[in-house]
């Protein structure tokens, strides 16, 4: 290090907020010693829109569209978590067909999120081609969801008590075609990427997370499952009609970036299985609960509901003071906890590895900022 009379010293390197690998507007202040990071300090909040403050100034129904704008990649999970919380406060029950439509659309939405992550993660690691393939696949799902909900990204589809639009044969056929198509594509991804030696070198033994760290930092979703904890809200705290479906919870062993990659890749197959079973089993009947009050005024009380979003546990905590507006809504977003471990993971790694770690966390920064 001390060649040619240069002095060894530390310096500060600014990663982001406008950096292609920080997915949105995340800034990380890196204290470097040569090529190695000695301290990383994430700076979040660039996309803070005050969603929790907005909740206190809107009625329950007026707040629905906000949900799609927190985590825009898995908007329907947020729709579902919020609707479940309000339904619990009001004592509403969703008819079974409504729940099935929720599960089908939420799982399709999970696939779009994982497909985007897959392409973007490999782009971070320097592989350009996969994103073209994954966006091609993702486009198919977006068309299906667009057909049903009217939007491509910021869905506001669920209502308190059910869903507003029923699915028809065109949608069902489209889903089945898509399932077939993605099933034929997944082995291609495996062959192209998973067995690629450069990819393995970039991700294996990088960003190892232990089970103990998962507990201390409250990591959920693929972050915890990559470390071998089979924690999936759809299984441990079953909601909606998930208990009626047969699906596996893929887990990793070592908790490195490669394990998290494998978990998400295998989850896509499980989502396809769930959609397929739901299409087969969907009962006929109403899609909306009867007698949903026009003016929502839940009794005073509090409620916490959790759903599994593509990134982990989304918790919706509502405190009602018996008014038409919530007294307080707290959004427990998975990426907030998942990112908080970054300072610990970054120490003694290279900047290039930090990019591999941030990508493997799968952060959606506007979700953290709220």
């Amino acid at each position: 290090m001390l060649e040619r009379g240069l002095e060894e010293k530390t310096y500060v390197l600014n990663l982001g907020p406008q950096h292609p690998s920080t997915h949105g507007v995340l800034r990380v202040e890196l204290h470097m010693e040569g090529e190695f990071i000695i301290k990383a300090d994430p700076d979040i909040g660039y996309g803070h829109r005050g969603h929790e403050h907005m909740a206190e100034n809107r009625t329950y129904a007026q707040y629905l569209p906000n949900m799609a704008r927190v985590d825009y990649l898995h908007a329907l999970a947020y729709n579902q978590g919020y609707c479940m919380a309000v339904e619990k406060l009001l004592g509403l029950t969703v008819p079974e067909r409504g729940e099935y439509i929720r599960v089908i659309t939420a799982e399709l939405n999970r696939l779009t999120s994982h497909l985007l992550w897959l392409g973007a993660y490999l782009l971070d690691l320097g592989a350009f081609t996969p994103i073209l393939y994954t966006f091609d696949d993702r486009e198919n799902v977006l068309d299906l969801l667009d057909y049903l909900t009217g939007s491509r990204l910021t869905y506001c589809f669920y209502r308190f008590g059910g869903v507003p639009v029923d699915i028809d044969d065109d949608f069902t056929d489209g889903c089945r075609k898509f399932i077939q198509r993605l099933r034929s594509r997944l082995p291609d991804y495996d062959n192209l990427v998973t067995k690629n030696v450069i990819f393995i070198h970039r991700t294996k033994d990088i960003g190892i997370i232990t089970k103990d760290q998962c507990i201390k930092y409250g990591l959920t979703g693929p972050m915890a499952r990559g470390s071998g904890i089979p924690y999936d809200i759809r299984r441990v705290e079953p909601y909606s009609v998930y208990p009626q479906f047969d699906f596996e919870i893929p887990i990793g062993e070592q908790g490195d970036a490669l394990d998290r990659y494998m978990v998400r890749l295998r989850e896509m197959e499980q989502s396809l299985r769930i959609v397929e079973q739901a299409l087969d089993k969907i009962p006929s009947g109403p899609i909306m609960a009867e007698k949903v009050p026009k003016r929502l005024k839940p009794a005073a009380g509090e409620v916490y509901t959790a759903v599994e979003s593509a990134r982990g546990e989304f918790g919706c905590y509502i405190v009602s003071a018996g008014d038409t507006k919530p007294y307080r809504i707290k959004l427990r977003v998975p990426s907030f906890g998942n990112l908080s471990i970054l300072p610990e993971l970054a120490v003694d790694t290279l900047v290039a590895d930090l990019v591999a770690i941030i990508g493997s966390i799968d952060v959606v920064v506007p979700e953290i900022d709220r």
Partner: protein
Amino acid sequence: MLQANIQKNLAPLNLEQVAAGDYAKTGYHLEVAAAPEQMPAVAQAMLSLGCFLESLSGLHYPEHFTLVYHFANFGELCRTAVHVKVPLDQEAVSISHIYPGANWYEREAYDLFGLRFAGHPDLRRILLPFDADFHPLLKKFEASQADA
């Protein structure tokens, strides 16, 4: 099983309330009320049973703040909600030395409510700009105030 163990671990701490919750209604298996200075002991008891901190929410009431800590467990479904009342002019007590994940949640509560945590290693704003001069989730705050 876990619920009984948590109750057993919390019993020696002489908390204000440790009661079974109405899961169907609120989503809690256990409802606990504690004083701010008891929080590190509660957190230690939860950590020893392998529970993780799900979320930390602040609430602003006219007479006091309430902090709500949600704990859950990877192995068994058991959600514990710990309510901590903090008088408006006092500090809460940090648990970030027990749960490093609480570090950011406490910074968030400080940022949004102006509520300070004693023993926090790095109590800076987290979501709002560092030079902001308001705490937006206080009930008296209105967005137009900051615009003006």
